[in-house]
């Protein structure tokens, strides 16, 4: 279901200037194609624009992945050389594992957190709409702005370390973002903070579709809280889970802005992701071929997970 709303009845009464039946001057269409609403060529501008900006650009980008082009002048086709370079370069391999870690980590934590909050907010709470608004607030902020706030919080002289010192846990204080071991976890915290509210909203929408009667019936039959969740709620919100995780993974695999603002990929490449590497290779270092090859790897990974998600979703048709 889309955001459907009952059409206003005025719409139906919209005045229509009298005209002869449609297609009066055109060749008669075979009846079997049904009612024709709208001319097919209305779709042309949209189709052309999408083909040009998405498919042609992606196709050309894919082609440059097999060249040694620097961005200016001539280039040679080098075959799989750029891809071999990726798998020999520890920074780029690290970017690959970091990307997967951040995408799956943020999807898992963000969805579990979002589901718990949604379950907590579901029904009865008097202030649930205010709470929903509060939890959703981080989602609308730009990832860049969000990242700066967290950069301060994790700063060496920032609130977290000051707090740790004040409760006598001063030896736990560390330069979070400058510590190669902790930086990636810090980034994960920021990503989860920004995505939990989004998952919560999707789960709340899903939970709204679970009939109260079924839950009550299960409760009367003696099912405990966990059993009610496991056998009544969970199957009903499966589509919501599929949507929330698919979007989360696709978004998580592309993560760029927070990294640029938080660590710029550092320390020593510990938080480099595929997206930041693509940007650095192609636009900062003038290695268009190498950047395109990395982007192709990223594209393949995203398509791979998107297809898997589609498969999983299709097995549970809900409509």
């Amino acid at each position: 279901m889309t955001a459907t709303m009952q059409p206003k009845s005025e719409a139906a009464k919209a005045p229509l200037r009298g005209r002869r039946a449609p297609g009066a001057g055109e060749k008669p269409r075979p009846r079997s194609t049904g009612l024709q609403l709208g001319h097919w060529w209305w779709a042309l501008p949209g189709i052309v624009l999408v083909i040009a900006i998405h498919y042609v650009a992606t196709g050309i980008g894919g082609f440059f992945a097999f060249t040694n082009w620097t961005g200016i002048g001539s280039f040679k086709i080098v075959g799989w050389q750029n891809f071999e370079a990726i798998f020999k370069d520890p920074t780029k391999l690290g970017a690959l594992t970091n990307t997967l870690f951040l995408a799956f980590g943020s999807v898992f934590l963000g969805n579990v957190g979002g589901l718990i909050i949604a379950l907590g907010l579901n029904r009865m709470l008097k202030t649930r709409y205010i709470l929903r608004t509060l939890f959703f607030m981080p989602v609308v902020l730009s990832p860049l702005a969000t990242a700066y706030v967290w950069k301060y919080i994790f700063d060496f002289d920032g609130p977290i370390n000051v707090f740790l010192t004040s409760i006598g846990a001063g030896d736990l204080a560390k330069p979070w973002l400058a510590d190669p071991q902790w930086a990636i976890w810090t980034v994960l915290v920021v990503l989860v903070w920004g995505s939990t509210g989004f998952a919560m909203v999707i789960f709340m929408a899903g939970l709204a579709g679970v009939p109260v009667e079924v839950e009550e019936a299960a409760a009367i039959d003696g099912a405990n809280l966990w059993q009610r969740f496991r056998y009544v709620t969970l199957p009903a919100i499966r589509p919501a889970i599929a949507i929330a995780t698919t979007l989360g993974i696709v978004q998580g695999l592309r993560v760029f802005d927070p990294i640029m603002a938080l660590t710029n990929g550092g320390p020593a490449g510990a938080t480099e992701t595929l997206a930041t590497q693509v940007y650095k290779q192609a636009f900062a270092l003038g290695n268009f071929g190498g950047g395109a090859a990395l982007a192709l790897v990223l594209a393949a990974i995203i398509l791979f997970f998107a297809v898997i998600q589609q498969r999983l979703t299709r097995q549970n048709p809900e409509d």
Partner: protein
Amino acid sequence: MFRYTKLTLLREIGLWVLALTFLAPFYFLVTTALKPDSEMYTTSPLALPKNPDFSNFVAVLTATGNSNVVLGLVNSIIITAGSIVGLIALGSITGYVISRSTRRWSKGAYYLFLIAIILPGQLGAVPLYMGARAMGLTGSAWGLIVLYTGMLLPLSIFLYSNFFRGLGTDYEEAATIDGASRSQIFGKVVLPMMAPATGTVTIFAGLIVWNDFFTSLIFLGGSANQTLPVAMYYYIGSLVSEWNSIFAIVIVSMVPILALFLFAQKRFIQGFSGGLKG
């Protein structure tokens, strides 16, 4: 049978505590931005400002050059508004035709758009940049409006076509019988009915364009026309760690979108949950 009990009250209190902890970053954001330089290094980051003032905001709003925040704000508004107009115009008509057409190609077109949603922009970014540069689209608001419209069109078409699929064809059939032409049907029958889908597209696309950093960084790079995120990025890059000034600019960039959200939060959240269930 489910009633408001003491346990429910406990749950409510617990969630409030969680929510306030969750929003703690906003506390640091506001208190720090109000601290004058003299207080930055002498007070605890957890403390409230002793003599709050707006000097940081004044400094941010009067900055010039690459980090002209006011110009960035204006550019962001123009680009976001222009892209939304383009996405509504092209998305509604394309989504309508491909969801209503019974021809074979329309299903193919639907999948063409669906796949385009998940194609990662980074792969096309380099060729797109070259093409845009050749056509003179880089460095201008116009160019970015065209680019954003093209990039987000699949999403817009997807939302619109799902909306039209959920909407019966009765009204349009009635209008056909009454003798309305196809453009009359679209303009006078369909257009007024699609407001909910338009709302969702506006929210989704508006938020993505407003917050986007990658595209504007590349396509406006080096020009005097910056969007807000890029202006913010450059400005903060020149500040090192003057957190009070940094937070002043972060707040300036947050206020428009946060104000819009709090004003229209119900629609906003509905747009997100409803638009995705397609």
